[in-house]
């Protein structure tokens, strides 16, 4: 029997790996120094630890240690990349290209710049699988374009964008390319050289590290990317991000990267297998369920499914010993169904019916089987209660009905 509750929401956050916690512990207690203290051993010890982590981060994305800027998380990294580039290169241009399914950290940074009159932004559409067309990126570039910001892999539907092609276009057109790689780093191979990425955001808590620590990779050569800082102060992190370094968090982030890099090939294979098992378990037993996102170009641990005629939040309520998330309006702060699912062009009702399963390092095949059973049973129960299911079974085309809400 499996132990409940089962955590299957690893795109939202991941538990800290015990090995990561072990690495962090001394920096809470005996090794508590400030990495900026240059004149005693406490400071040196902390600085050494930060340097080690910087190398561990650099290594997982094939960068150089000095190109890593530590931040409070990927939200800050995205803000710094976008606002920092637009501000620094304002004499060169003011046009930014991004895409409609980006994380809010990217979209709202862009919106803030638009509101302030500092940038004009092109929001590229995605295809029905949630993928950006590199040709659209190319066509959107103008002589005013200073930044392209496209995520590596989407946090809701798991779709992996054609990053290498976009990187190539950015190089060719000499536009800086920022990539929010929060969901990709440690899960699939990411290589800033081969992928042609100039700025890259990552986060500790998505890869079994601690929360509240992130990083921004800033390319130092070919081209050297410059940024105006968004936080002013003591000039830490080569002036790009002031503030006493979160040494414990950084040490944990570094350890998390090292573990993820080492285990990546085996873990990606294992998660893909588990994900496929879950997918088969659901699709074999339920009719009228739909995969959201790309059928193959998808993060190993991601499965996003719409269960027609069943509202997402009610399904979450029914499987209350399983932690997953839904694109249903009822589960979002804005009371709107997921903008990512809606961007796929599927009908609105299916956006309300979407569930995201996020498999991670600590999930097992037994858990997957349990979840597939639990979801199947609950979907069937809720469909028996659903007027839409009844109408559909009677042969009524729901699209032809005039709803009066």
């Amino acid at each position, binding site marked *: 029997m499996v132990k409940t509750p089962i955590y299957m929401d690893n795109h939202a956050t991941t538990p800290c790996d015990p090995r990561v916690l072990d690495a962090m512990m001394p920096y809470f207690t005996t090794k508590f120094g400030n990495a900026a203290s240059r004149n005693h051993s406490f400071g040196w010890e902390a600085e050494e630890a930060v340097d080690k982590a910087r190398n561990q981060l650099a290594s997982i994305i094939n960068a150089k240690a000095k190109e890593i800027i530590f931040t409070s998380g990927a939200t800050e990294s995205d803000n710094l990349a976008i606002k920092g580039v637009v501000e620094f290169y304002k004499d060169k241009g003011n046009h930014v290209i991004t895409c409609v399914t980006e994380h809010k950290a990217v979209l709202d940074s862009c919106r803030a710049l638009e509101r302030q009159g500092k940038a004009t932004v092109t929001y590229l559409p995605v295809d029905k699988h949630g993928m950006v067309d590199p040709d659209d990126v190319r066509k959107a570039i103008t002589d005013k374009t200073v930044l392209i910001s496209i995520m590596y892999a989407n946090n809701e539907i798991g779709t992996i964008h054609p990053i290498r092609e976009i990187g190539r276009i950015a190089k060719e057109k000499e536009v800086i390319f920022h990539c929010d790689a929060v969901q990709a780093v440690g899960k699939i191979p990411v290589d800033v050289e081969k992928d042609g990425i100039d700025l890259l955001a990552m986060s500790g808590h998505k890869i079994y590290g601690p929360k509240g620590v992130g990083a921004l990779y800033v390319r130092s050569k070919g081209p050297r990317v410059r940024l105006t800082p968004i936080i002013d102060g003591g000039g830490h992190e080569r002036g790009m991000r002031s503030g006493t370094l979160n040494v414990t968090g950084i040490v944990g982030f570094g350890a998390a990267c090292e573990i993820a890099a080492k285990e990546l090939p085996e873990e990606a294979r294992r998660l893909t297998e588990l994900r496929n098992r879950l997918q088969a378990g659901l699709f074999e037993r339920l009719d009228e369920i739909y995969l959201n996102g790309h059928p193959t170009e998808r993060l190993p641990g991601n499965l996003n499914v719409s269960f027609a*005629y*069943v*509202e997402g*939040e*009610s399904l979450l*309520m*029914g499987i209350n010993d399983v932690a997953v998330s839904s694109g*249903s*309006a*009822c589960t979002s702060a804005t*009371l709107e*169904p997921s903008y990512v699912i809606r961007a796929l062009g599927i*009908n*609105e*009702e299916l956006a*309300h019916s979407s569930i995201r399963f996020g498999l991670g390092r600590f999930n097992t095949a037994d858990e997957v089987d349990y979840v597939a059973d639990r979801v199947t049973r609950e979907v069937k129960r809720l469909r*028996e*209660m*659903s*007027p*839409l*299911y*009844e*109408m559909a079974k*009677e042969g*009524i085309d*729901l699209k032809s*009905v*005039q*709803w*009066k*809400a």
Partner: protein
Amino acid sequence: MSYSDKVLDHYNNPRNVGSFAKDDPNVGTGVVGAPECGDVMKLQLKINDSGVIEDARFKTFGCGSAIASSSYVTELVKGKHIDEAMAIKNTLIVKELNLPPVKIHCSVLAEDAIKAAISDWKKHKDGAEEPQAARAQEK
């Protein structure tokens, strides 16, 4: 968000789920909401010639609070005269189920469903129109 015990109870043990024959002249059917908004409630009331609601059935596509609101309403209206039922306010449902502010629309929908079902019954009692369960009714 956590749910009140009453919402959980109605969600886990919904009362009066199901459908009556749509062509039964004593049945009024109300369908309110829209799939793209994430809630659709179908409420059916079996009403006798003196205007007393003898039985009720529901089916709901929506969140747990929407399911609970409709389930609760089926219990609430049974035995009531249609005039009494027409006077039921959504605030009563909010209070009874302890719905948080973001779920008030579920109670509004349930109130609308009662009104829609009764007016459907009246319509075909008056012989003006056949019951049309499949069509969404006006609020």
